[in-house]
């Protein structure tokens, strides 16, 4: 699929490895330092909630759509979350049109799990009529520029969008999109932090060149009240138990950093 020159990538990969051995990175960051992060909530003014996140050059737009539907049979008293991701070909020469790739599916599912498993959304407050009518929360991730670490950027965009989402009114069997009945009911603030292992070196927030050179990737989602709520290893490399433990510690620390950015954004 990758149409770029194979040899070029091999050279780049060797360069990234050489740097990593010396504790260095292609953009001179520290090992556990995030790139610059910009969060623009409410970017899509006409949608009930949205946020544009720039993590260095990686750009993700998360948009929330609200609709009324029937709950799942086994959770009649809960609203429904659906998360999708489109790696639109605009964002990278390696993304293609067509049905979602396995990468897009994994991304959507890992972002979804961070939100779902942490019970970030109070789904019981999204019930209109038990067993019959509930709010469906669609979280759509639109990747606009791909320079590595879609997981953290997407999870951050999704959470920022949810924090700025207004639930529309529902009256006389109709959704009134111009009026709001409440803020999206949130209970926790999960964020995701992704680490790459290059040789024996662990790095936070890999850029694309690092991501491609890495053997393995680990994403950890943490909550503001001290829980881990999701994890996902990617890539054909391996991790030791000790590495995972070290990553968990860093993940809580960096998670609080990301939550700080979200918090600042809520005020601003």
């Amino acid at each position, binding site marked *: 699929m990758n149409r770029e020159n194979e040899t070029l990538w091999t050279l780049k990969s060797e360069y990234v490895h050489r740097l990593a051995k010396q504790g260095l990175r292609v953009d001179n960051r520290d090992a556990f330092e995030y790139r610059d992060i910009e969060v623009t909530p409410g970017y*899509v003014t*006409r949608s009930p909630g949205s946020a544009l996140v720039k993590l260095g050059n990686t750009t993700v737009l998360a948009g929330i759509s609200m609709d009324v539907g029937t709950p799942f049979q086994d959770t009649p008293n809960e609203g429904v979350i659906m998360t999708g991701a489109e790696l639109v070909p605009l964002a990278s020469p390696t993304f293609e049109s067509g049905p979602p790739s396995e990468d897009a599916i994994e991304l959507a599912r890992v972002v979804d799990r961070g939100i779902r498993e942490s019970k970030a959304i109070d789904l019981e407050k999204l019930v209109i009529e038990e067993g019959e009518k509930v709010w469906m929360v669609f979280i759509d991730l*639109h990747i*606009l520029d791909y320079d590595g670490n879609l997981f953290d950027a997407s999870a951050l965009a999704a959470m920022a969008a949810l924090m700025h989402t207004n639930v529309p009114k529902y009256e006389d069997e109709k959704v009134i999109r111009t009026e709001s009945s409440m803020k999206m009911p949130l209970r926790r603030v999960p964020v995701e932090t992704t680490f790459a292992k290059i040789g024996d070196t662990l790095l936070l927030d890999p850029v694309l060149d690092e991501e491609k050179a890495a053997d393995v990737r680990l994403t950890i989602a943490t909550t503001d009240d001290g829980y881990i709520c999701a994890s996902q290893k990617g890539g054909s490399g391996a991790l030791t138990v000790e590495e995972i433990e070290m990553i968990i510690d860093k993940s809580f620390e960096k998670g609080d950093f990301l939550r700080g950015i979200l918090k600042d954004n809520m005020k601003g």
Partner: protein
Amino acid sequence: MGGKSEVPLLDKNGKRIDGRDLEELRPVKMEVGVLKKADGSAYVEWGGNKVIAAVYGPREVLPKHLANPYKAVLKYRYNMAPFSVDDRKRPGPDRRSIEISKISREALERVVMLEYFPNTMIDVFVEILQADAGTRCAALTAASLALADAGIPMRDVVAACAAGKIDGKVVLDLKKEEDNYGEADMPIAISPRTGEIVLFQMDGLMTKDEYMKALRLAVEGARKINEIQKETLKDKYKITNLSGGDNNE
């Protein structure tokens, strides 16, 4: 074109619901080189529309059997983000976006010098991030800028605009409510140097007089859009020769 005139679209002073005059464009903002990975890119904000375009190529043709030994293959993909409209749009191409992609590609084929790049492919991708009527015009306008930004040689920079009919009057550049409850819509695109029409559609009900008035109005609108395109490219490159525009880095 619902034509349900219960909703008044013009006030007693002849002003439109957003306060515009009949022949007035909505506010338009343009920017080029907004994406890092694309060979060329542009962002267009046009009323409530937010549109981003990217160009990749000339590059290898995939699948290979589509390659043309005489010219580059031009592809155009118009895509709406699920949250760009009130009722969430399911991801993936629908019939409407396939049609829009086709006629937009045909419009650009008129100006892009495809014959310079045989056996290659030039991909134009446009994402509608927020929709407020006239998205195909905004998309094509952004696509032209992105092509220029990518340094693809073109005979001209295509500019688009729509005219239409609301409450019995021919007006320029419909917004969403005007499109939903108005009587006709006519999106067009021009090659500004020659004034030729390269994209042309119309739906709704119009007499010949209204139709020709709308057409001329839309052409004028597109010319104004083209002025903004030219300013945007000038600001970026500090040069006037657009088709000689260099890459965005």
